[in-house]
């Protein structure tokens, strides 16, 4: 992974000193609340329902065991002993004291971490595929590009006060596990016929109140021009994005108003002035950054590990876990493993300090000391020998990481919701738990197969409900908490926004509603279909008829 040099380290340390002074001035009454607000937000600090919430960047989801142990220490010393891994591959602490935040940032700087631009109307943490660098279907490793974008966006002086927040995602595989279609900018690293690397550039995707899939504005941007082209997009947005209404301020609204074609022309016109300038990336810089992501010292195996395959045959529990939580690796004899943070009755994405320490231990023992955080709110060990999988499974079971549900209905993406967040209309975690309890039969769950169920407690869509195959949105109905269901969303290569099923439901009806939706799928599916395939074939009506027929 990327290791800071003296420059990177100095910038992060100077940030700590800057924020320490800003906090001192705020506590001394020299800064008003509205003035401190953008300063603390650009450092990931929200004032939440019960206490400040501090969001720490995990750049593109990559974290070392040493960094994970530091997070565990922060959880213990400054929080209530746990942390929450978010849908943007970041980590959040829900109970720090405001005056402790500078000290927490100093701890983070010791292990090359920070909270820079994890919130506020600026360029946020760049996200990518959790299997970057190891996925069998990968064409180009996206991580060097993510790091290059991280450095370019860090304290970019022109774009610190954008109309609204700005999120960039990068994908380099044939599957899209980074959901680039629903980001302000989605970058697909591609190779042209000559084998040269470039980017397919999507702009204007996003969730929130006006969910949209991004539009392509450049089919092949040669890699050397990545940063000057991003500068051009951001400059057009900074100048012409709406600032009169925060709900219409995201770049997607500007792209739609201008049309993607006109937006692309504006960007191209702006770019002509800066193209080929000093911001043009160099081979040296690419090599320098890419060198940090070279392959670890893999052992050489000729193919799958025979003992691993035999154990799968022999032990049903191990096989269930391997089917869902073990993923193909580009190197023979290795696998990537998801550690589930979603056992039933735990808030999705939550981990205790003890679990974080334990995950770090597993990373050291089995996966070259590195972990990844996924946007589905789980952890990944990306480089595990197949021969070690059984031992890893045993250890993960002990630690509560082995729920064999990755990609299944109970692997729910869920925001903190009304239990924690001051923006929420409704609670989300209890809904997730009720659904997990209803679908507790593992064979049944495996039979249902791949199904993304996402829950957001409000329109801001932190739980990505628009792109859940089944999406659930908490709404306020005359002061009561209700839930609106949508079907057919998809965050992958065929990104789509789900369609609303119909009138919303009370919390206690939600498990039954989901059961009915799943029943329709099970009755109508063909042998090769997953839920989303059946939905696309038969449409909304059969689901609607079943769900509403029974409730009236």
């Amino acid at each position: 992974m990327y290791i800071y040099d003296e420059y990177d380290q100095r910038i992060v340390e100077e940030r700590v000193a800057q924020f320490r002074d800003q906090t001192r001035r705020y506590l001394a009454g020299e800064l008003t609340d509205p003035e401190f607000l953008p300063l603390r937000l650009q450092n990931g600090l929200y004032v939440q329902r019960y206490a400040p919430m501090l969001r720490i960047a995990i750049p593109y989801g990559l974290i070392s065991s040493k960094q994970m142990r530091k997070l565990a220490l922060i959880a213990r010393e400054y929080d209530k002993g746990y942390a929450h891994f978010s849908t943007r591959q970041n980590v959040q602490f829900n109970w720090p004291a405001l005056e402790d935040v500078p000290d927490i940032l100093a701890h983070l700087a010791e292990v090359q971490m920070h909270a820079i631009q994890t919130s506020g109307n600026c360029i946020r943490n760049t996200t990518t595929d959790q299997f970057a660098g190891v996925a069998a279907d990968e064409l180009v490793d996206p991580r060097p590009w993510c790091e290059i974008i991280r450095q370019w966006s860090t304290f970019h002086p022109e774009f610190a006060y954008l109309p609204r927040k700005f999120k960039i995602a990068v994908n380099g595989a044939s599957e899209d596990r980074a959901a680039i279609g629903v980001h302000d900018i989605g970058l697909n690293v591609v190779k042209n016929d000559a084998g040269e690397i470039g980017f397919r550039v999507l702009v204007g995707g996003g969730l929130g109140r006006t969910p949209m899939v991004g539009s392509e504005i450049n089919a092949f941007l040669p890699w050397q021009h990545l940063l000057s082209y991003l500068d051009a997009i951001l400059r057009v947005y900074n100048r012409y994005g709406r600032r009169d209404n925060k709900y219409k301020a995201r770049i997607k609204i500007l792209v739609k108003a201008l049309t993607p074609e006109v937006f692309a022309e504006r960007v191209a016109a702006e770019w002509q002035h800066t193209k080929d300038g000093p911001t043009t990336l160099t081979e040296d810089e690419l090599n320098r950054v890419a060198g940090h992501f070279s392959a670890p010292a893999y052992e050489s195996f000729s193919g799958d590990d025979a003992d691993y395959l035999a154990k799968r045959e022999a032990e049903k529990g191990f096989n269930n876990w391997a089917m869902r939580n073990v993923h193909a690796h580009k190197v023979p004899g290795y696998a990537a493993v998801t550690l589930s943070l979603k056992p039933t009755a735990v808030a999705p994405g939550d981990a205790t300090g003890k679990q974080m320490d334990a995950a770090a231990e597993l990373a050291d023992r089995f996966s070259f000391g590195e972990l990844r955080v996924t946007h589905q709110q789980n952890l990944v060990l990306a480089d595990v020998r197949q021969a070690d999988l059984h031992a890893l499974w045993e250890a993960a079971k002990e630690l509560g990481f082995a729920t064999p549900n990755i990609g299944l209905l109970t692997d729910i993406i869920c925001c903190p919701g009304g239990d924690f967040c001051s923006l929420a209309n409704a609670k989300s975690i209890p809904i997730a738990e009720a659904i997990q309890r209803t679908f507790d039969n593992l064979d049944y769950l495996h039979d249902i197969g791949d199904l993304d169920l996402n829950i957001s407690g409000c329109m801001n869509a932190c739980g990505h409900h628009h792109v859940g195959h089944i999406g659930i949105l908490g709404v306020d109905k005359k002061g009561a908490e209700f839930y609106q269901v949508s079907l057919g969303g998809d965050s992958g290569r065929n990104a789509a926004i789900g369609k609303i099923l119909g009138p919303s439901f009370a919390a206690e009806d939600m498990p039954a509603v989901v059961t009915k939706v799943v029943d329709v799928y099970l009755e109508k599916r063909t042998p090769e279909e997953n839920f989303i395939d059946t939905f696309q074939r038969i449409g909304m009506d059969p689901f609607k008829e079943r769900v509403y027929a029974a409730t009236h």
Partner: protein
Amino acid sequence: MQQLIKRDALVKETWHLLPADTTLEGLSNSDDLIVPLDLWLEHSHALKARDGGLGVWLNSDEEVEAIADDLEHFQVVALNFPVFSDGRSYSNARLLRDRYGYKGEVRAIGDVLRDQLFLMKRCGFDAYVIREDRNAEEALQSLKDFSEVYQAATDQPQPLFRRRG
């Protein structure tokens, strides 16, 4: 009393910033004036004929392209921040410097706060009118918040990746 930081030091203010609805009538001939964009666009001949210094100010929703051909006439271009969270004037400043080659003073006016100064300086501002209720002496410190930067901007056209040792 206006507090003006210019090239990293507190200086005495000599310019008069005229409000947006200013008309030509009764305008001083010899004072140093920063006039609103509309006044310049309507009366550039008369303004050029004055003896005093001339500057122009643009609000955040006005575009520097409007004065791109007139820059030789201005000793000061002031860019307004109606609220500190409105970031459009950062782009206007960079365009003034990087694209149109303006060498005069680029002044930040309006809701200018200490914690924005470092960013403003990077975008080509070299003068800042600090809010009257703030300590301008202390604000000077924030021009030095960071000793190193990643990306190219007006103050440092070479990105760090071309300078890393």
